[in-house]
């Protein structure tokens, strides 16, 4: 072991864009609204089960709104990222937090993804794939210009770093 000194992971340097909070809120609102509307319509149409359906709709709505109020702000505090010359370093999660590190020499592809909702907030996600089948590293909620620039920089860096990525 490397000595007696206790160590911990430091937070990555960069926060995500502030608009990401609004984007996450919008996402949660949409995912809440769909079942609430369905349950509400069913409740309006089906007389005998009206009470229970509307109750369920209300419960989902309350839960969804609570999450909308609570989680995005927490995510914003946790979600951070950093790209050095050697590695990509990302922290995500809330209740379950996750730090992921991938060295430049092992990166295979770099993509930017922009969903419809992300586009309205001028945000983008950068996806970094390695040879591991455990899934790519995603940096969510970046300003789209910054994301494009970052993807370009990562591509250049990975090209400059030797190694066959396995």
């Amino acid at each position, binding site marked *: 072991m490397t000595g007696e000194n206790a160590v911990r992971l*430091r937070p990555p340097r960069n926060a995500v864009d502030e608009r990401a909070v609004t984007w996450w809120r919008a996402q949660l609102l949409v995912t809440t609204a769909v079942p609430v509307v369905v349950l509400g319509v069913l409740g309006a149409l089906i007389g005998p089960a009206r009470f229970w359906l509307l109750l369920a709709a209300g419960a989902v709505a309350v839960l969804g709104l609570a999450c909308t109020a609570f989680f995005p702000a927490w995510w914003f505090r946790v979600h951070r990222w950093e790209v050095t010359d*050697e590695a990509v370093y990302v922290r995500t999660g809330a*209740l379950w937090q996750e730090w992921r590190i991938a060295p430049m020499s092992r990166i295979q592809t770099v993509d930017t993804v922009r969903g419809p909702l992300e586009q309205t907030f001028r945000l983008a996600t950068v996806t970094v794939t390695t040879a591991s089948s455990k899934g790519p590293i995603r940096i969510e909620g970046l300003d789209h210009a910054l994301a494009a620039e970052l993807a370009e920089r990562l591509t250049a860096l990975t090209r400059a770093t030797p190694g066959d990525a396995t």
Partner: protein
Amino acid sequence: MSEEWRRLHPRTLLAGAAVLCGVAGGAALPAVAGLAGGRPLWQAVAWVLAGTALLVFAGTAADWVRLRRTRYRVGPERVDLHTGFLLLKQRSLARERIRSVDLTANPLQRVLGLVKVRIGTGEHTGGESTLELDLVTRTEGERLRQELLARAAAPEETGHDSALATLDPRWIRYAPVSFVAPALGGAAAGAVMQVSEWFGAQGKVIDWIGDRFQEVSVTWMILDLVLLATAVGAVGALGLWVEMWWNYRLEREPGGTLRVRRGLLTARSVTLEERRLRGIELVEPLGVRLFGAARVDAVATGLAQDDDDKHADLKNLLPAVPRERAERVAARVLSEPEPPTGAPLAAHPRAARTRRLRWALWSVLGPVALLAVLGLLLTPVLLYVAAGCAVVLTPIAVLFARDAYRALGHGVSGAYLVARSGTVRRSTVALQRSGVIGWTVKQSYFQRRAGVLTLTATTAAGTGGYDVYDTGESQGLAFAAEAVPGLLAPFLEPVHTPEARPTLR
């Protein structure tokens, strides 16, 4: 170097037709039984025979078209396969990327002298990277294997015994204690019920069993039946073991490849390039572990990527053998003087044990509480059942939890990082430190409170990532930084207030 286009062997048709006959025969029996209900027997038989003939004929015709349309070529640079009738498929693999050539032959194919050849590049792009020649002659298969894998070999260590392990018939004693035995027992019982149902005799079978056990109580009857199924399962496991591992031989071939040959009826030959090997995994399933045995799996890139379940046994290098022997074979596979898995491992903090004990107690408490509530509402009998469950299950759960904690360990051993975990399936993985392509650190809310974290070394090989569960925060990070120098270190900072947090939670 053979440049011309080659075709699959015509005897492939015979093999296909024979399989179809078998399938048709298997389906014919219940079909006749079903059809004979409404009409005379000869009519039912005639219908089924006509169906069988049609099936076999159509299948063989389709196979013939496939045979006509399939051709392959081994060029100096690439291997090409053209196939398909309406949808033409052309697949081409660069020869320098070919990592494995596996030959398999089931009993029928062996009689006909044919083998199936799978040529793989070991990439993570699914089926696209595998080229399958569905039946060529055995000599052709062997020729392909040698030609495709024999490339500029590193200077060979001569005078080295090439066989790393050969079959020891005594290993069969571990077959009945594997998880295969109960599964086979259950399957046998299910098969009896299913077949009797086809003939509408399920009721009779159950009555007959009831008659055999007239003198004894229901409990004894169930116990006897379970014992019987277990015995059948054990016998089945023995048979399966013989089929799987007969003629087993693990050897190192010139040119830097490992080759596993085994199988009584279905002969398998798996070739693995050592360049792709990132480590080994020592697996001890519970039953086998109680008898001090372990099996060895390879951790290699691009092994069985296309359909994992079907070819899951490709990575199996050694059957369950005495643990010490397994470690020696593992060391020889890795060309190490000492097995990395034998190194002493660092224990995990007590918080990890507390967490496991807590999980165990919750998993008992949940069902017991449910039973108790139902008992209070419905009938007091359930209360006794709940009490019984609590008394019996709690010690078992605690035993498992303590065993799971004892299993936890990690360490660095030479060029390998070693991680051990699991109680039902204890696995000790030794992963090349240079094969680690990233780290993932995970911490749940409860882990943060307990001051532990789960570390995952991601890799291109095997399952894609190997976990070190519930290490101490600083302990785990220091281990990760030591195992792969330079990767994690820039993101670590010292904790200025020394961790005075007592780990007694």
